[in-house]
């Protein structure tokens, strides 16, 4: 093993892996919540829906589009002052979280909106005809009926987030991206880059597997 990967220090690799998992995990949970809230707002304020409101819809939609369009590596740099204020530092895994969430949530919000639009209008009409409140329609109709699409959407977003953590790593967030860049690229240790790449692939495959499994379990259509 050591002859194959002469420059690899396994303790450092595991530490970096757990940092990557931590950043991805925290960011996925936050993106899921923020994205669903934004997606619901986008959907409910759109034309012909319960909270139809052109102004609100335009504002949310613009914000989502702007943050979705900024390349992630630039977003991290733009957010440095913001990160400094709310996290207190611009180094380490926690410092990467604001940028990860702000980068991924708008992307996921659009997927949520599309998933909600796929719901049969008749089902919402039926719920209204039964006297359901808006909160009941959200919790008992919109979210359960779009859940498979919400899960497959968060799977895609989570995989994108693994990529984002690697980029964040380059500017000091730690994790496998940071390791591959500092140890692998800058010191020209290709074996470290290789191991980091394989571990990122494994993480991606596991996320995809879990996502597909959960989606197929809950989809009763």
């Amino acid at each position, binding site marked *: 093993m050591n002859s194959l990967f002469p420059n690899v220090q396994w303790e450092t690799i595991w530490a970096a892996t757990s940092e990557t998992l931590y950043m991805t995990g925290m960011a996925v949970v936050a993106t899921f919540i923020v994205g669903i809230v934004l997606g619901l707002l986008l959907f409910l304020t759109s034309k012909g829906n319960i909270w139809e409101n052109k102004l609100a819809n335009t504002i949310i939609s613009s914000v989502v589009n702007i943050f979705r369009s900024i390349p992630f590596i630039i977003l991290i740099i733009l957010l440095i002052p913001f990160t400094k204020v709310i996290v207190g530092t611009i180094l380490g895994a926690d410092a990467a979280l604001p940028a990860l969430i702000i980068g991924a949530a708008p992307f996921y919000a659009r997927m949520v909106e599309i998933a909600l639009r796929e719901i*049969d209008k*008749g*089902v919402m*009409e*039926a*719920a*209204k*005809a*039964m*006297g*359901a*409140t808006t909160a*009941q329609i959200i919790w*008992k*109709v919109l979210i*359960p*009926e779009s*859940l498979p699409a919400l899960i497959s959407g968060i799977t895609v977003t989570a995989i994108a987030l693994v990529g984002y953590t690697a980029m964040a790593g380059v500017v000091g967030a730690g994790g496998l991206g940071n390791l591959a860049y500092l140890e692998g690229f800058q010191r020209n240790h290709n074996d470290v880059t290789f191991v980091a790449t394989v571990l990122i692939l494994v993480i991606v495959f596991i996320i995809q597997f879990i996502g597909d499994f959960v989606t197929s379990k*809950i989809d*009763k*259509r």
Partner: protein
Amino acid sequence: MITLSNVTKIYKAASGSVTAVDHVNLHVAEGEIFGIIGYSGAGKSSLLRLLNGLEKPTSGEVIVDGKDMGKISGSELRQARQQIGMIFQHFNLLWSRTVRENIAFPLEIAGVPKEERQKRVDELIRLVGLEGREEAYPSQLSGGQKQRVGIARALANRPKVLLCDEATSALDPQTTDSILDLLVDINQRLGLTIVLITHEMHVIRKICDRVAVMENGKIVEMGEVLQVFRKPEQPITKRFVKQVTEPEETKEAMAHLFDQYPNGKLVQLTFVGDSTEQPLITQLIRQFDLTVNILQGKISQTHHGAYGVLFVHLAGANDAIERALAFMRQQQVEVEVMASE
């Protein structure tokens, strides 16, 4: 139970406004099965949605069970809606819930406690005949079973009114009949008022007490189903009645007969109620010097008695035919002499 006075519904669109419901006046008595028939775009769907406040009238008053559905809003409207069940052409079930959970849905909305919900759902499953399918998901059910779930769900909060939006239009004829039988059954057992919209005269014939015919947002004809069948006044009503009474092949057979018997008359006889049981043809042949050729006959059962149509060809001397027609007109039979086209 339901009163509409001078109700108009206008939709404003970029391309101009559309009058979907045009000065409609209507009264539906408690326990009645009231049918509204019309082609698509006639406004019947908007009219039905005015009854549970899914649409608000532009002007006029919609009173359902004493409540002005056009005026109330918020929790008062939601309370009122729990007393009005609704079923749909495409069932509109939640695919993520089992049969049992779908039926429990309106009970959850109404805030019924869990044990009570369970009990009520079991009752409803028996009522609509879905025993053994409780844990199935909608995707595992046939169309007829889905509509049974829809009906059970609509009845869950013991409503006083049931609205049916083309409830059988997506079903095959046999399933349609079983769903219609179920509707009549719950109407009689629960004393439920039913308002249904359809484009199929068959549905009106089979279960309705009264019918309204809609065209361009207006009710053009309204009355007891049997009366409307016997004496349709408007052209559109005649066309709907023909859906049930005059199959396509009759037309072809008649065209053929006009060729074959240039003399004599083709007559359509319409019998209602007791007159369906008279031996009219026997009397005709005995009393007049005529040849009577029966082309086509049909008896349909409506909710309020039988309704028959007979197409016959009369051949003989002209004055004998005239006397025969006069005789038949005295016998509570509608007589229509068909013209060759």
